């Protein structure tokens, strides 16, 4: 069988508050091999400079809604990595 070239997904990653400071960016684009998950996005972020300041399992959102690490990501998704919430 011929190997199928893996498709890739590109997502827009948003960072906030202390996480934005840690990685020195408010947003970046990441391209991952498909299938990819929210947890996979986090893993890639943690490999970047400053990325070890992110916890292994931060709160995340996909397209404006809270998302588990296992949730699949699709090309064009907006993935937000959320520091501990402090509203109210």
């Amino acid at each position: 069988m011929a190997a199928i070239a893996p498709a890739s997904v590109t997502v827009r990653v948003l960072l906030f508050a202390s996480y934005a400071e840690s990685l020195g960016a408010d947003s970046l684009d990441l391209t991952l091999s498909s299938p990819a998950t929210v947890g996979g996005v986090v893993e890639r972020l943690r490999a970047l400079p400053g990325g070890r300041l992110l916890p292994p399992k931060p709160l995340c959102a996909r397209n404006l809604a809270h998302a588990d690490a296992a949730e699949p990501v699709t090309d064009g998704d907006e993935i937000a990595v959320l520091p501990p919430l402090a509203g109210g």
Partner: protein
Amino acid sequence: MSYLTAGPIDVAALHSAVHAPDRGGVAAFVGLVRDHHQGRAVLRLEYSAYGPMAEAECARIVAEAEARWRVAIALQHRLGALAIGDAAVAVVAASAHRDDAFAACRHVIEEVKRRVPVWKREYYADGTVAWVDPTAAMQHA
């Protein structure tokens, strides 16, 4: 009305938004900026948010509460620079039923704290600045 506001929260306007002749009981919660946090004197603070998601999450919380209880909810969270004593968040729940008004009001403020992507940067009297982490505060308490 937007759930997020850069200016002062008008609690009376939130009341007006949910008052109705058949809703005799109105429960409200207002969260004010305190002058201390874990024993440190706070001078002022700044709230920031993931705006579009914060709006969406507030809308979901309100819709869930209005589906679960016989109640109309008004909710607003302030962003930007706040001084001690400023209202940071307000929830108003109006109902024909007192139980529903209290239960929904309490539920909404808890869900806002748990789910809405808002962050708080505190400026202390000793010159330091920190992002507030309520989960760390709980461990230390």
